[in-house]
């Protein structure tokens, strides 16, 4: 997978590059819109990550031009402008997703994966990690064969973590996807922490090897102990 990152802030561009390369993507950096356009013509690109405030040319303008030629190329906008109008304008211009700075790399990865695997996948009915099993239909959860009794929220949380297993899930992602809260300002951090603590107790309390881990300052991750 080849990803083109058009971002004029060099430190940020480099951080994105490193992070993506760590996940085995092929990454090309462009620091201006013109450079980005040139690279788009010269190489095959699977996805574009685009900053909206670039020197010389408005990002929205770039997206619209780009959309005319590469109709199916996924575009993720990263921007410091976070008002709802800006968001709508960005998505209207043809971008597929919109991330407000400062965003976490974990979230960028999650969005990337969602965009790159847009083809329909067979619906998953069961989720599993090590000896943790989850049946989405019967809502039955068990660890080492022992059933675990979860509340609705805890069930949703665990399912979400299991779908993203092995990858970090940020609080922002949980707020948006589980609590369906559009604004980041809503103070749900404590609520998330309480739910996670309870979930951890129920999932890991009965086993020696913990599966739920906290990534300090970033979020949570569900994985086998490495």
């Amino acid at each position, binding site marked *: 997978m080849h990803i083109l990152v058009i971002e004029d802030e060099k430190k940020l561009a480099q951080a994105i590059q490193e992070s993506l390369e760590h996940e085995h993507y092929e990454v090309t950096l462009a620091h201006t819109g013109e450079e980005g356009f040139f690279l788009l013509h010269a190489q095959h690109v699977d996805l574009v990550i685009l900053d909206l405030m670039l020197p010389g040319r408005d990002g929205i303008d770039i997206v619209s031009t780009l959309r005319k030629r590469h109709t199916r190329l996924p575009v993720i906008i990263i921007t410091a402008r*976070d008002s709802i109008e800006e968001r709508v304008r960005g998505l209207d211009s043809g971008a597929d997703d919109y991330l407000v700075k*400062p965003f976490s790399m974990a979230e960028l990865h999650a969005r990337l994966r969602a965009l790159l695997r847009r083809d329909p996948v067979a619906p998953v009915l069961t989720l599993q990690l090590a000896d943790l099993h989850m049946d989405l239909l019967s809502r039955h959860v068990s660890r080492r064969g022992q059933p675990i009794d979860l509340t609705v929220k805890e069930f949703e949380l665990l399912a979400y973590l299991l779908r993203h297993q092995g990858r970090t899930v940020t609080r922002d992602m949980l707020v948006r996807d589980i609590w369906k809260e559009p*604004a*980041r*300002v809503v*103070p749900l951090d404590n*609520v998330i922490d309480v739910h996670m603590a309870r979930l951890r107790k129920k999932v890991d309390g009965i086993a020696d090897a913990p599966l739920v881990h906290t*990534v*300090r*300052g970033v979020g949570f991750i569900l994985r086998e102990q490495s």
Partner: protein
Amino acid sequence: MQLAPRRVRWRLSWYYAISLTLIFSVFSVCVFLFVRISCMIPIHAQLDQELALVAKAVRSNAAALAQLETEDIVPYFRISQLAPSAAAGTATTLYTSRRWNMSRFAGNARVTENGNWLLSATGRHYFGRRFIWSQAGITWHIDVAVDTEQSYVSVKKLTIALLLSWPLVLLASLGGGYFFAARVLAPIGAMADKAREITADKLSERLPVQDPNDEFGHLATVFNETVERLDTYFERLRRFTADASHELRTPLAVIRCVGENALQQTASSAQYENAIGSMLEETDSLMRLLDGLLMLTRAEAGQLALQPEPIDLAALALDVVNCLRVLAEEKHQQLCFDGASPGYVMADRATLRQALINLLANAIRYTPEHGDIGVRLVQSSAGMQVIEIRDNGPGIAAEHQSKIFERFYRIDQDRSRETGGAGLGLAIARWMITLNSGSIALESKKNKGSIFRVTLAGIGLSGT
């Protein structure tokens, strides 16, 4: 010291001068007319009398006429006759008194029935009137005149006096106006001088109010009130800047120190991980602070796009209660919701929800363990929907109550990050409610708990 502008002073003087001169002109005309009329009344009376005497004498005989003249009863008279065939104006003079002849009136002494002025060769002024009567086809003219030199001169002197004083009045009123305008306007100069001294650093200064009941006193009072508002505003701004810099600097300081420490020591990867995690946590709190501040700024600038829709407050409040219930459970608090019947309001769901979350999260945070928290939806008599968020926590002292909704306001002056947030929650809550045309009130007593009351205008969906 710049020269004070004088335009108002001049304008006032001109207004004085013009009105005074106008009044004086009307007065002069009246005086003139009055004096003239009062002079003419005795003259006409005398003429009436003399005409009657002459007419009587004419009817009797020539001797009677002569007697009138010699005894100086009627000194100036003339009798002429107009033949029926004769052309107009060609009257034959029958008799002229000696005095009339001597006067040698100018212009052939044309006299009218209504009376007119006559000027003698010596320059004296007379007033003459003609009496016309016809008998047997013959028309008689009797002209009688009286010497009015004295009255004429008096009226003339009066006229001259009035005309001469006109420019004097104009000048005097201008000068007087200019002088008095200066006295009236004097407080403005004083106020301007004082106002010039009031700067952003010296907002405690006030304008002198000489008489609060006059216009300038009123102006000064209003100005002082404006300065007062500015003063409180600046004071708030100063506090806001101080608090904001504290809230922004603290996480930055943590990031910096933790980063430096990690670099200086050769540490294990676990220690590095710890340091980076700590820095990321601070980044997170900075980001939330920034988001909150931006949201407040947008709310104040009216830049938040709201989508009002009918919302069942009971459902929304219950949703918020359920969302935050785990927080209360962790502190073993009783959290109950009371609002069986739905109450509809027109509001933006996201902002209203955020306001309620902030209020309830606050109540849970500041109420000690095993406390009681209640959320209640009541319908007031005026069709208002009221949500009460009540706790039995420490309460809020009266001196904090008015400021509790200000940005960054914290009751504890140490602004500890252990015991509370940045102090934006209530400010955001108030704005979100204000934007939805609602109001928020606080009822609290120290150590007796608090009630936050959110009032929104209900819409008539509840009955259907």
